[in-house]
C-alpha cells in the first residue's frame, strides 16, 4: 500500500475516514432498545463493527464525483468498443425507472398489485418475438452469457426429454466466437468443439460437415460474427445441423446490425439471446447490470425457465408456474426487471421504423469507417461489413513495431475510448492483434469523422514518432498501468478494512 496521497481527491474512501464522522442518520428508535447479545441469544455475534469508512456527506459526494471524472463514458466520449454497442442511453429511461412504482415494487406482491409490471414484461416479450421471428421469450437471464447458458440448458433438456441426452455431448463453436460461448458450453456439461473459419471469415461449410454428427447437440453461431461479418449461409448451416438432429443457437449480441432487417427465425435458428444492454440501450453501468433474454422456437418453449407470463382471457396477466418440463430457474425472481423497464422504454420509442433505422445507420457508420481507414490500417476482411469492422496492426507492427495496445492507448489522448483489442484473438486475425471498431447509430457523422482523423494521425505518428504512441496515454489521471503486477502480486482490498 502506498502512502496516503496528499490531495484528498486521490484518496480512497478508507483514507478519507475519521472516527466520529457521519453521513446518514436514523430516526430515533420508536420501540424499546434491546441488548443485542440478549436479543440474539443462541447466535454468535461479530467481535467488532465492520471497518467501513467514516465520512461526511460532502466528502462522500466529492469522492465519487472525482472518481466519475476519471472514467471515459458514452455521455462524454466517443466509445467505439466493438461488440459492446456503446450507444447513447436516453435520459428518459432512467427518469421513468426512478419512480416509486418501480423502486418500491416487491416481487412477492399479489398479482393484482403488479398488473402493470406483468403487462410491461408481456409487451417486451412480444417486441423480442417480433424482432427475432421466434415463438416464445423469457426475460429471466441477467446478461448475455446468462442467456447463453439458459438457451444451452433448454437444448440439453430437450435432448434429455427425447432420450438423446447421453448421445449429444458436443457443441460446435467457431474459433472467433466470444469467450462466453465456449465457457457456456462447458458450464452446461458439453464438450466445446472448435470450428475454424474459412479464409473470408465465413463459416467453413466443409469443416462444419466434417465435425457435425449424431454426437452434436448444437452449434453456437454469432451473426453478424465477431469479425463484423454477416454470415451468408445461415440457412444452409441450419439445415446441416437439423439434418443430424442438432440445434442452432444464435448469439444475438450483435443484433444492432440486423434488428428490423431480418428476423433470425427466418434463418432457421432454434434459439437466440439478446443483449438488451447493447442493442436496446440499457446503460452499461460500468459493467452491468444488463439483461439477456432468450427467444426460442416452439419445440424448445416447454423448457424455458419459470415462471412464464401469460395473458388471461379477461385481459389480466398472471404468472404461470405450472411448467413441468421447465429447466427451472436461472436466477431469483423475474430477471433484471429494472433493466427491462429501460429497454422497454427505449424500444417503444423506436417502434417499427426506429428499430430498422437503428440497424441501418449502425451498419452505415461501420462501413464508412472501413473504407475511410482501409489505406491506413489493415482491414482484416475488406468486404462489406455489418455494424462493426475489424482492423489489425499488421502494417504498424511490421513497419514500426507498434501494436494494437499502443494504438488503443494513444486514442485515449485524443479523447476517444479505445476500440476492443482483446478479442478476437490474434489466431483469428492472421496472427496480428485485432482492433474491433463499432461506432453505433447514435454517433454523429462529425464524431465519426473526428475518430477517422485521429486514427489517420496515429498511423502517421507510428511512422514519425513510434515512441510517442508506445508510451501513450499521456493525458490521463494515471499513465500506462502495470496490469501484470495486478495479477502476479494481487492486492485485492484496502488493508484498513480488515483487522
Amino acid at each position, binding site marked *: *500500500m502506498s502512502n496516503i*496521497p496528499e490531495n484528498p481527491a486521490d484518496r480512497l474512501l*478508507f483514507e478519507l475516514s475519521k472516527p466520529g464522522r457521519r*453521513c446518514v442518520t436514523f430516526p430515533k*428508535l420508536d*420501540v*424499546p432498545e*434491546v441488548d443485542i447479545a440478549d*436479543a*440474539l441469544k*443462541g*447466535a454468535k*455475534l461479530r467481535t467488532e*463493527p*465492520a*471497518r*467501513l469508512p467514516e*465520512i461526511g456527506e460532502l466528502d462522500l459526494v466529492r469522492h*465519487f464525483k472525482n472518481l466519475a471524472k476519471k*472514467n*471515459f463514458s458514452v455521455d462524454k466520449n466517443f466509445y467505439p468498443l466493438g461488440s459492446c454497442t456503446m450507444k447513447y*442511453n436516453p435520459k*428518459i429511461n*432512467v427518469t421513468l425507472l426512478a419512480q*416509486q412504482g418501480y423502486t418500491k*415494487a*416487491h*416481487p*412477492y*406482491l*399479489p398479482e393484482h398489485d403488479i398488473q402493470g*409490471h406483468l403487462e410491461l414484461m408481456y409487451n417486451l416479450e412480444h417486441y423480442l418475438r417480433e424482432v427475432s421471428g421466434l415463438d416464445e421469450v423469457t426475460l429471466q437471464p*441477467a446478461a448475455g452469457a446468462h442467456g447463453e447458458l439458459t438457451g444451452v440448458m433448454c437444448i440439453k433438456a430437450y435432448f434429455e426429454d427425447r432420450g438423446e441426452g447421453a448421445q449429444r455431448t458436443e457443441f460446435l463453436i467457431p474459433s472467433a466466437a466470444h469467450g*462466453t460461448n465456449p465457457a457456456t458450453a462447458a458450464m452446461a456439461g458439453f464438450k466445446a468443439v472448435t470450428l475454424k473459419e474459412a479464409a473470408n471469415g465465413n463459416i467453413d461449410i466443409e469443416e462444419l460437415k466434417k465435425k457435425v454428427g449424431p454426437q452434436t447437440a448444437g452449434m453456437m453461431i454469432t451473426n453478424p460474427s465477431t469479425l463484423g461479418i454477416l454470415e451468408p449461409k445461415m440457412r444452409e448451416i441450419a439445415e446441416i445441423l437439423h439434418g443430424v438432429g442438432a440445434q442452432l443457437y444464435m448469439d444475438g449480441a450483435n443484433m444492432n446490425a440486423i434488428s*428490423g432487417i431480418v428476423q433470425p427465425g427466418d434463418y432457421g435458428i432454434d434459439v437466440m439471446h439478446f443483449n438488451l444492454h447493447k442493442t436496446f440501450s440499457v446503460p*452499461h453501468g*460500468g459493467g452491468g*447490470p444488463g439483461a439477456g433474454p432468450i427467444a426460442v422456437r416452439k419445440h424448445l418453449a416447454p423448457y424455458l425457465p419459470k415462471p412464464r407470463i401469460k395473458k388471461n382471457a379477461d385481459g389480466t396477466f398472471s404468472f404461470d408456474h405450472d411448467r413441468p418440463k421447465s429447466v427451472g430457474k*436461472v436466477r*431469483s*425472481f423475474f*430477471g433484471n*426487471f429494472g433493466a427491462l423497464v429501460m429497454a422497454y422504454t427505449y424500444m*417503444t*420509442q423506436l417502434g*417499427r421504423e426506429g428499430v430498422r433505422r437503428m440497424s*441501418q445507420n449502425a451498419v452505415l457508420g461501420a462501413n*464508412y469507417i472501413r*473504407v475511410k481507414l482501409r489505406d491506413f490500417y489493415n482491414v482484416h476482411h475488406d468486404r*462489406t461489413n455489418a455494424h462493426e469492422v475489424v482492423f489489425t496492426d499488421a502494417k504498424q507492427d511490421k513497419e514500426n513495431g507498434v501494436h494494437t495496445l499502443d494504438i488503443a492507448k494513444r486514442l485515449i489522448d485524443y479523447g476517444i475510448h*479505445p476500440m476492443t483489442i*482483446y478479442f478476437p484473438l490474434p489466431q483469428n486475425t492472421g496472427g496480428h492483434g485485432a482492433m474491433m471498431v463499432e461506432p453505433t447509430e447514435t454517433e*454523429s*457523422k462529425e464524431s465519426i469523422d473526428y475518430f477517422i482523423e485521429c486514427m489517420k494521425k496515429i498511423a502517421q505518428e507510428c511512422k514519425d514518432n513510434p515512441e510517442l504512441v508506445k508510451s501513450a496515454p499521456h493525458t490521463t489521471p*494515471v499513465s500506462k498501468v502495470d496490469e501484470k503486477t*495486478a495479477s502476479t502480486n494481487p*492486492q*485485492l*482490498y484496502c488493508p484498513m*478494512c480488515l483487522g
Partner: protein
Amino acid sequence: MPFIQHTDEDRAEMLKAIGAKSIDDLYVDIPADIRVKENGDKVKLNPSMGELEVTRHINALLAKTKNAGNYAFFRGAGIYNHHVSTLADHLALYEGDFITAYTPYQPECSQGTLTSVFEFQSCITALTGFEVSNAGMYDGASALAEAVLMGYRLTADKFRKETRETVVLAGAIHPEYAATVKTYCETTGLKLVTVGAGKDGRVDAGALKAALTREAAVVAIQSPNFLGVIEDVESLVKQAHEAETTIVQVIAEAVSLSVLQTPADAGIDICVGEGQSIGNHMFMGGPAFGFFASRKDFVRKMPGRIVSETTDRDGRRAFALALATREQHIRREKATSNICTNQALCALRALIQLAAWGKGGFTELGRQVVAKTQFARKALAAVKGVELAHPDAPVFNEFVIKAKPGLDAALIKQGIMGGLPLETVGMGQPGEYLVAVTEMTTKEDIDKYAKALGA
C-alpha cells in the same frame, strides 16, 4: 428518427464514400427473400414514440400497480424494503460517467470504476472477513449456484482419486436460490441432496450427518435462513469439514452482517449473498447484485471479475482488472465461469450506501432492525390466535408466525401487506406467514398489523 443524428445529406455522403447506392446494398449477405421490406408489416411493432408519449404510456402501466409505499409493509423473503440513500441515485443512477461507461478493460480511462470496485471489494471484505471478494455476480441465487460449482471444484481437486459429485443443500434455503442451484446442478451433472429444517427452524443435524457421505463435495447453508432463523454456523462448519467437504454460506439479508459473526470467523469456505438490501431499490427483485467472497488460497478458482491495486508507469497508485486467466475471455471453455457482464452499477450503489451509513451507521442500522424485529415478534405473538413458529430460535429481521390461513386479502384491504403466506412459495403450511422488518417499519405499522390480526 429517435436518437439518430445523421441527416439525409450525411447518409448520402457516407454511402458515396463507401461506393454503395443505398443502405440496402450493405445487406448483400442477407438473402433477399427473407429481408424485411421497407414499410412492410412483417415486424409487428408500434409506431415510434417521443418522450411525452412514452412517459404517458409508462405512467399508464404504473397506474395499474401498487408498491411498498402504499402499505404498512411486512414482506421480505429475500428483497427488503430498506431506506435507499438519495446519494446512491445521485452518484450512480444519474452519474453519466458511471452509468454510461463499460467494463474497465482500459485502466487508464477507467480509474473511476476500477477504484470503486476495489473499494467495493474492500467493503465486502470488511463485512464478511474474507480476504477476497469479486466485483459481483448477477444476484444471490446465481451467486450461490456458482459458489456450489466452485466448492465442488475445490473438493474434486483435492480428492482426485475419488468421485465426489454430490451437493448437499441444508436447511431452509430460499426457494428461488434452491431452484437455481438445482437448475445449474442438473445441467452440469452434479447430484443434489436436500436436508430439511428441524422443528426449531435450523438444519436438521442428524439428517445432515446422514447426507454427508463420501460422495458429498459441497454443503450449502443459508444463515439467517429463509425462515429467518440464524443457524449454528460454527457447528455446521465443523460437520462439513469433518466430512472433508467445502461449505458455502448464502446470506439473503446482507444487513445481518452488521451484527452477526462473520462467515470467515465461523470457518465458512465461500460466502455469497444477495446485495439488494444495501443501496439497491427493490425493482420487483432486480437488478441488484450477488456478492462472492472467499479465502486468499481459493482466489484462482473464483468466478467473476476481480480488481487489484497496482501502479502506473510513474509509480503512482492505480487499479486494474486482475487474475483474468480465470475468465472466459482468456480461458474460454476452461474458465471458472462464463460470466462477463455483471451488476457493476448495483455494486457501486452498495458501496455508496455503505459509505453513507459508515461504520457507526451500519451498526446502528443492525441494532434498529433487531430492536424492531424483537418488538414485532413480541407484539404479534401476543395476539390471540397467533403464535411463533420458532419461539426459541434467534432471528435477525424475519420470523414465521402461525395464524389463520387466508388472512392476506383482508389485511391488504386495510392497507397492510402482511407476512408472506409460506404455502405460496412451497415453504410452509397454510396459516404460516414470514414476517419481515426493516428500519422503515414503524411502531405504528406493527401496532396496526397486530390489531388487524387480532380482529
